[in-house]
């Protein structure tokens, strides 16, 4: 790889200064004159019909200025994509504990709370669906509206059809058949969801939101509030973490605050409490994954059949797409002769599920990477050696039947973590007889992750660049940054392409009035799609400047060469960047450009389960070393070694940060983050019940990138963010197997699981829920 001037060099996060000084303003940090506080009345029941709803008593409470229900929106506040089954405020029935029913705006938080308590609401409790296995029973209570897709409680189904695995499996020397379980995972960003809506003089609305995609938010507000698109402006405030979690819930909160602001003609701020965030927002899908996997006795993987049963909860949200991503990754990053995958997602009354970092792949790979390990064990093979024999390499056919033509460095990643972790020595050391209560083990898992949206939809982004009168260059992107560092990445790409110092570039906050719609900021697509759009914009700006310089030098634009800040003519005359800019201005050339980039088109046929799911993939491997205390059941992490094949690294500290953060989230998923439901009642209501890793739970993490220039990436870069979380949990489960000789095939592997085999608290949390929702 050629060395670049800015890209790949140590740089500071673009908005770091505001963050280390405490000056970055998040939604909850805005206090405006006349600002009102909103509070939402939420369902304390998992499934019920709303028999009576009289919101007017709230208005009698001192300080309450407005109250709204579903009837205050167009079409009963119905919204949602890809399935339009959600509501800004529930209509006719509630489907989970925390489902919003009404909202008030008041002069203080206390008045707002008293306001929601005054609302008269009568529910008729309905039978609850909490067990995914019974959601499709003929006599199961039906959760969705009748016009929802599928039949009964079926949210969606997916399939993958590559060859015919059945006859191959019949002839395999070894066949493994196992089922793996995954509970929900909560995003647990430290900043809860919120929105600040400000009514404008023209009857419109400006909304500051900590949402995933301001343009989707704007379009929802337009639809739900009946405003013309030019009168709704959404500005992204600083976002205190998202991980996929501020999508639908962000739009729902914005719509509630927006309607209240229009009604009161005063600014309205809604910020969820932590318990509301736990109960009312969505989380990673719980899943049950059945795998049948066959290999020959010399260790060649032959065929796989995978069945996924996915808990969508009360609404569809992103489950139809998460379950698709899970489906097209479910047999892992290996060569097969045939693979079938069959997936069903079902409605239940277990909260609701949606997008979270990895988007279905942590469950899919979490299952297959345990299964592959089990098969390697049966064949008495070293787990890394077995994976090296079967893993995808350049030009191989993936589990979905498509050929992977990009450079694949998965084997290099496996060898890297093998070497860095001292695998061979530790693996044999821990295989020898261990005695006492403390048992050690080391395990591995690898991953592939389809880049960007893939078959989920059109995949484009637009960046604008403008040279201002003061010589600074402003950059806008329709994509957003919740802390993952994409803004710094865009600035580095622009600086590299334009040949100017990064200090000359300033990036605007995402704003629907200044940026250009670029699709959602999801699927780890910013670096590749947004980065390419930025590069295209910078190239277009360069064209203008080359044209101006050529005119000054009396030569052709293609005769000019650049060095840093300077433009050179064929006779080695030179002009500075600012001089060329002035010339271009004098010539009347526009110094504002847009750059759009779209992923190459490819097709996945959802009906036949065949085609090309993604244009390209990232790959990687992780090793985890653990110590299990057989007496307490606790697992202590000793180390994690990670290697990622994601093309060229643009912002090294940002990239490492993604890896460290992803691994930590994976450790929580594997060991402590326990989010389950009992009869629709959530078993975790706050950080007291739900344990995300603290600094002393996370071991040293060894971070490695196998870099190469990927043809389609900006300066050779692919994606980060999501892939980092995928392998940690199965690597830990595989390490725990070496330490204990046991497999539980479930996450999280809490002390109760290690000691008793299962961890189902089955608590009646109804009173705690009422209290947490401000109803008692």
């Amino acid at each position, binding site marked *: 790889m050629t060395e670049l001037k800015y890209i790949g060099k*140590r740089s*500071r*996060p673009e*908005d*770091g*200064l*505001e*963050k*280390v*000084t*405490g*000056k*970055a*303003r*998040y939604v*909850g*940090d805005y*206090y405006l004159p006349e600002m009102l506080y909103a509070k939402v009345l939420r369902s304390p029941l998992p499934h019920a019909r709303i028999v009576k709803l009289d919101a007017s008593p709230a208005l009698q409470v001192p300080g309450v200025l407005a109250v709204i229900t579903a009837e205050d929106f167009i079409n009963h506040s119905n919204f949602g994509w890809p399935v339009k089954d959600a509501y800004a405020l529930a209509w006719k029935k509630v489907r989970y504990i925390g489902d919003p029913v009404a909202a008030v705006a008041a002069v203080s938080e206390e008045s707002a709370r008293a306001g929601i308590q005054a609302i008269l609401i009568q529910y008729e409790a309905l039978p609850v669906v909490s067990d995914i296995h019974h959601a499709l029973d003929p006599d199961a209570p039906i959760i969705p509206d009748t016009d929802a897709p599928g039949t009964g409680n079926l949210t969606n189904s997916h399939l993958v059809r590559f060859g015919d695995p059945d006859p191959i499996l019949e002839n395999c020397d070894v066949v493994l058949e196992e089922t793996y379980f995954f509970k929900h995972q909560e*995003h*647990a*960003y*430290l*900043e*809860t969801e919120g929105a600040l809506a400000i009514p404008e003089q023209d009857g419109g609305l400006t909304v500051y939101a900590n949402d995933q995609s301001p343009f989707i938010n704007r379009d929802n507000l337009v639809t739900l509030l009946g405003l013309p698109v030019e009168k709704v402006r959404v500005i992204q405030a*600083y*976002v*205190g*973490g*998202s*991980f996929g979690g501020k999508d639908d819930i962000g739009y729902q909160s914005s719509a509630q605050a927006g309607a209240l602001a229009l009604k009161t003609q005063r600014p309205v701020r809604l910020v969820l*409490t*932590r318990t509301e965030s736990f109960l009312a927002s969505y989380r990673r899908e719980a899943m049950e994954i059945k795998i049948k996997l066959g290999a020959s006795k010399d260790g060649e993987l032959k065929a796989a059949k995978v069945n996924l049963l996915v808990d969508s909860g009360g609404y569809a949200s992103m489950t139809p797409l998460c379950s698709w991503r899970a489906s097209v990754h479910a047999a892992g990053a290996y060569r097969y002769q045939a693979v079938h995958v069959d997936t069903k997602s079902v409605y239940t009354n277990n909260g609701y599920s949606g997008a979270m970092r990895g988007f279905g792949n942590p469950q899919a790979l979490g299952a297959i990477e345990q299964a592959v390990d089990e098969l390697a064990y049966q064949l008495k093979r070293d787990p890394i050696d077995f994976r090296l024999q079967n893993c995808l390499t350049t030009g191989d056919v993936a589990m979905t039947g498509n050929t992977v033509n990009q450079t694949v460095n998965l084997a290099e990643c496996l060898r890297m973590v093998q070497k860095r972790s001292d695998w061979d020595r530790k693996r044999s050391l821990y295989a020898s007889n261990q005695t006492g209560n403390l048992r050690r083990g080391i395990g591995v898992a690898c991953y592939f992750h389809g880049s960007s949206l893939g078959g989920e939809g059109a995949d484009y982004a637009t960046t604008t660049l403008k040279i201002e009168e003061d010589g600074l260059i402003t950059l806008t992107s329709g994509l957003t940054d*919740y*802390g*993952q*560092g994409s803004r710094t990445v865009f600035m580095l790409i622009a600086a590299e392409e334009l040949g100017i110092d990064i200090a000359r570039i300033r990036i605007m906050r995402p704003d629907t009035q200044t940026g250009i719609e670029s699709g959602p900021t999801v699927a780890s697509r910013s670096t590749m799609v947004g980065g390419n759009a930025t590069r295209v914009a910078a190239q277009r700006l360069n064209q203008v400047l080359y044209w101006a310089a050529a005119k000054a030098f009396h030569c052709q634009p293609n005769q000019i060469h650049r060095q840093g800040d300077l433009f050179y003519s064929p006779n080695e005359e030179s002009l500075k960047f600012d001089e060329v800019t002035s010339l271009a201005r004098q010539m009347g050339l526009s110094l504002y450009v847009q750059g759009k980039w779209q992923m190459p088109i490819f097709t996945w046929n959802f009906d036949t389960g065949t085609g090309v799911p993604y244009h390209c993939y990232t790959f990687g491997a992780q090793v985890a070393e653990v110590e299990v205390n057989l007496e307490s059941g606790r697992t202590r992490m000793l180390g994690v070694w990670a290697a990622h094949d994601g093309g060229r690294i643009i*912002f*090294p*500290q*940002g990239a*490492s*940060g993604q*890896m*460290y*953060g*992803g*691994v*930590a*989230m994976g450790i929580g998923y594997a060991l402590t983050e326990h989010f389950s439901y009992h009869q629709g009642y959530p078993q975790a209501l*706050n*950080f*007291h019940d739900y344990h*995300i890793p*603290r*600094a*002393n739970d*996370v071991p*040293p*993490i060894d*971070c490695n990138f196998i870099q190469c220039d990927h043809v389609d990436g900006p300066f050779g870069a692919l994606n980060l963010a999501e892939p980092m979380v995928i392998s940690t949990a199965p690597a830990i489960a595989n390490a725990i197997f070496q330490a204990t000789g046991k497999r539980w095939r479930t996450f999280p592997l809490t002390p109760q699981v290690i000691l008793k085999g299962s961890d189902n608290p089955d608590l009646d949390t109804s009173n705690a829920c009422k209290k947490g929702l401000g109803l008692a």
Partner: protein
Amino acid sequence: MKIEFILNGKPTKVEAPEGMNLLNLLREQLGLTGTKCGCDTGDCGVCAILLDKRLVYSCLVPVSQLEGHQVITIEGMQTPDGRLSDLQESFLRHGAVQCGYCIPSMILAGEALLLRNPNPAREEIREGISSVLCRCTGYQQIINAIEEAALIRQAKLKNQPEKDMERAND
């Protein structure tokens, strides 16, 4: 009730309801929004501030206990002429900042640690910041940043050149 205390080095007089906690006093009444609310139940630590140089959760401190005490928030970490503190600089250098929501209290956690233990081992740093949750960073670059700031402070005491102390491996 009337309270007098030292806030970021300045004697401060406030009138606040007795049941109010320090977090709300700082944010709602004094306009210091650098201190964040993450749970309001004393679990997450993103509201942590320094009370008499010790790290405490401001959501658990009733204003009635403030009389005569010294409070430092993130707004008090820069030097009077606006320069960043060594920890703030170090956090930036190491890219220890992602969403930024926990960062004010992480910097104060680092400060509290270095005040009581100027030369901490990595494991002591890990323990020292364990009362503040972060969901983005996996803590490693934060630990690197605090470790480096400690080394620079030590070097300054011994009059060694700062440059040699900077570590590059993030």
